[in-house]
């Protein structure tokens, strides 16, 4: 039997081409670490050695000290903001998936939603926060979660709607020829085709949700959360503590981004043929 031999796996050929360009793989990890170290050293040089920094830029050592000393309250506020972001992200994503599904199924729904989505996309969502805070009361986290949800909605909606239209004619023909029902076609073809798009939307939305939930705290509401703390301590001159809270905000954003990126990578592993 003259069965053709199996072609080399894609990751193998990638590895050889990278080796061919003479870039060892450890460099990919060491390079950013070196950049980070250089920045921190320059920062220390400017603040602690030369003492030419403005008053609101404390030394990274001072920020680190505050981070360790106040770890308890920073963690509590980080959890508040992270929870608001997560609730907003999930709620926005669910609503976006449902509406995108309806828009993909019925053209008129698409036509009805398009102007609404365009309007939401151009309005600076965070600007609505004072209104929402007044609507739902200053002791409720709902306003912040709603802002995060609206911010997350747009990228998920647009991506899922596009993803639901990615089925290829040959696959549709195949399922029709196989006598598949509408629901079966949705389950084995439309949904898996849309999944990578959903997760791309989710990755973009996760950063937006964190940013929106955090910035929303600057506009009132309960006196907790990372954003509130940064504003408070910056105003009262405790720069190092304010910066330590910024580190907490970065941590939230990083976790959200890494988790959604990982999900996206898992889903897109088998997409191109």
């Amino acid at each position, binding site marked *: 039997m003259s069965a053709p031999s*199996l072609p080399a796996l894609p990751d193998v050929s990638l590895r050889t081409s990278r080796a061919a360009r003479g870039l060892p793989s450890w460099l990919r990890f060491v390079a950013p670490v070196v950049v980070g170290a250089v920045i921190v050293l320059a920062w220390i040089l400017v603040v602690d050695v030369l003492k030419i920094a403005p008053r609101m830029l404390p030394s990274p050592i001072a920020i680190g000290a505050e981070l360790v000393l106040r770890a308890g309250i920073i963690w509590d506020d980080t959890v508040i903001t992270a929870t608001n972001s997560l609730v907003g992200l999930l709620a926005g994503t669910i609503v976006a998936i449902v509406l995108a599904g309806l828009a993909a199924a019925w053209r008129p729904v698409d036509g009805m939603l398009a102007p609404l989505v365009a309007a939401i996309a151009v309005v600076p969502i965070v600007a609505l926060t004072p209104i929402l805070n007044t609507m739902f009361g200053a002791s409720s986290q709902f306003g912040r979660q709603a802002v995060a949800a609206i911010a997350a909605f747009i990228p998920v909606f647009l991506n899922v709607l596009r993803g639901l239209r990615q089925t290829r004619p040959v696959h549709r023909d195949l399922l029709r020829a196989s006598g598949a029902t509408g629901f079966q076609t949705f389950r084995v073809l439309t949904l898996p085709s849309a999944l990578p798009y959903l997760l791309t939307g989710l990755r973009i939305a996760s950063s937006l949700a964190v940013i929106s939930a955090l910035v929303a705290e600057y506009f009132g509401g309960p006196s907790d959360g990372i954003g509130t703390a940064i504003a408070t301590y910056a105003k009262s001159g405790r720069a190092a503590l304010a910066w330590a809270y910024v580190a907490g905000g970065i941590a939230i954003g990083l976790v959200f981004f890494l988790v959604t990126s990982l999900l996206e990578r898992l889903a897109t592993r088998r997409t191109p043929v």
Partner: protein
Amino acid sequence: MTPTDETRGATAPAPAVRARGVGKTFAATGGEVLALTGVDLEVAAGEFVSLIGPSGCGKSTLLRLVADLDQASAGELEVFGKTPQKARVDQDYGIAFQQAGLLPWRTVAGNISLPLELHRMGRAERDERVAQLAGLVGLSEFVDRYPDQLSGGMQQRVAIARALAENPRLLLMDEPFGALDEMTREYLQSELARIASETGAAVVFVTHSIPEAVYLSDRVVVMSPRPGRITDVIETGFGEERPEGLRESEAYFAKVTAVREALHGSPVERANER
């Protein structure tokens, strides 16, 4: 037409495909396009029939009508004595396209078993059938691979296995080897000839290639465009077997010449074409 489908099936089997005066028009900007007109064709059970002709002759359209992927605008079309729609729902045919059309997120086994899953075959029975089909197309060692890890020829073999999954009595193939290199192509032709004779399924095979049509077929149906219609039918008369030597035999070359002349028309017409 007096006996019912069931009783007739036992005594005199209905032909796999029967077309009488079949036509198809497509709506297009600036009026309608006549894709197919006046097609009369009968494909017997177990027969291998190729449709050949230049682009736009309606050969793929005819196949899609048989598969109920499009509906005829004129004439009568029956598949095993039923309407094409009923035959599709009953899964009387399997189909393969020029693109393998595998689902990239499913393994080879997952792709082959797709039709079986859709028709709710039990897990154990399904696994057994998939193993059997993978063996039939020579891919037993590759059932856990994903489509992007396979060559084009191997992907097409998966598609053929998938088309055979429900043990159909009719196989519809739309240029399945059109995108493959010549070596792989000849190899898969031999495989297809073997599979068709082993399973006893009728095959309607759309192709651009004269040698391919002649090698595989019991009958070659020659079509011409504007409007798409059947202009000639050539019997090959090679019998059941397709030994490798056939490709170099006198009888084979004679039929290749016959099909070529039928495709191009008489020498006089050829001179006029310029």
